[in-house]
């Protein structure tokens, strides 16, 4: 089997600067997880069911 060609230096992408992050500790990460859950629940709370079944039944696309 032919050997897979290795990438040459010139074809390599220029190195990106290393992405900056904060390493989370357990407590702060847990707070972030809770915050995400709260945001999701806020979103879910805004859902309103269709005003009445009739609206879906009677709306005719012609």
């Amino acid at each position: 089997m032919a050997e897979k060609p290795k990438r040459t230096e010139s074809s390599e992408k220029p190195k990106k600067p290393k992405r900056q992050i904060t390493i989370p500790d357990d407590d702060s990460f847990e707070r972030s997880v809770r915050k995400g859950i709260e945001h999701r629940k806020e979103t879910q709370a805004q859902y309103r069911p269709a005003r009445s079944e009739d609206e879906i039944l009677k709306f005719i696309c012609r």
Partner: protein
Amino acid sequence: MVSAPIDNQLWCQAFSTSEFIEEIRLASQATDYTDNSNQADYLANYLEDIGARSLLIENRYMDRHFIEEVGTFYSRCLSQKRNYTTRIHAFSRDLDLVQFRGILQDAKAGGREEAERELERDYLGFVVVRPLPSVPIGRTVLRTYASEDRKFYALADYTVHLTGLELKIRGLAFQQQDRGVAACATTAIWSALQRVCRHEGCRVPTPSQITEEAVRHYLSDSRPLPASGLSIVQILDALRAFDFPGDLVYDGSYSAEELAIYVNIYLRSGIPVILALDLPEGGHAVTAVGFAKGKKKSFPPLNSFGAEMLNGGFSKIYVHDDRFGPYCRAELSVVDPQRDPQHLTQQPSRYLAIEIDGRPRGKVRGAISPLYPKLRTTAREMYEAAIEIEPSLSQYIYGDLSVDVFFARSGEYQAELLDHADLDEDVLADFQIQVALSRYIGVTRWYVDGEPLADGLWDTTDRMRRETRAADALLGMIVYERAALPVFNKLRDNTGTLLW
């Protein structure tokens, strides 16, 4: 008795908009060109825009979808319609009959593949013309506009058989509603099923089969035939009958911005969206098949979402509207009746408005997406999953965070990863060897400063039930930005998900 020979004379014609319209008139047996000029005009202009230069016309073409209409409806009319159609092919090259004969001779001499590729390179698609003067445009498959910004994921591959040659075309079938057997909603369902049935390897039902299923359990206010229109419930019923139950996103249940985001998530996933519209002239249905990337944050999610939702960064969509034609440009916008004097009457709250081809604005009443039956997660649940994860990333990773939400068939997703320039080869190999995915997966693709950060992969074969979406259905995450691994390690520890 010897039957008369069946004639199928082919001929070629240089393209011009007037010539194309004249061919439609002749093929539909119209005595003059008065009715339904909208669709013929639209198609003529569309073909001109995508570079048509010649037409090849098959005089006698048996179209399965039309012949079934004949069997269901026209065979019992006093005045008989013929049972065959005319098919007009369009090419972006000059082509006359002498040249076409030459291509066939080359194919016979052993150059068949080359002949097919030569024709296919310039093939723009076909228009079936029914012998119905008032509604002539039958099954029509045309190429889309070529453009980087226009995104057409909900298309299908069609193989066209022409004089023994096979030509491939990628598009989505359109047809004009024939009020004998189909309402606008029927043709909208038909177009949507063209994509999902072909993608899943099923036979696409005909308009008369769709009408039959739509009225099986509930007949709204009239007879099934001639067709008079379908309610949203009947649209859902028909989709369920063909094993692609629809996810209905109903206006008023969500904010106008969220409704637009859900439409985008499905279109981004290659799933067409049937839009039930409240137009000034009444209820109407169209099929959305693509969108154009537009202004960032055209449809922002809730204020609490700290990232940019890329699915809200669009305003134009492309719809199959049987009043005009395929890939009609439509503009979506949020209208606030308190601030906009043009608001529809009796509409108290903000709504998602649509303007198709510059016509008067209407309201999106509902959006229905036909889903593969085991794709049980909805666009809304995926949107909520992104909302839930966002703080766990944005608080620790510096830069502008954005997310693109979509569904993908797992085999196609895995194939796409093979070409992903930002994925480390070892990570890719580990992932492909270790992973087990559902047929369809939900993907939350995160970016930081526009660079790929990570993909979250979600199971779609169950409802999301538990306290956290992530613990419930997150199958794993692929991390492109390896410097961010410590954050994703925390997420893995917290949710028990897999990490690559």
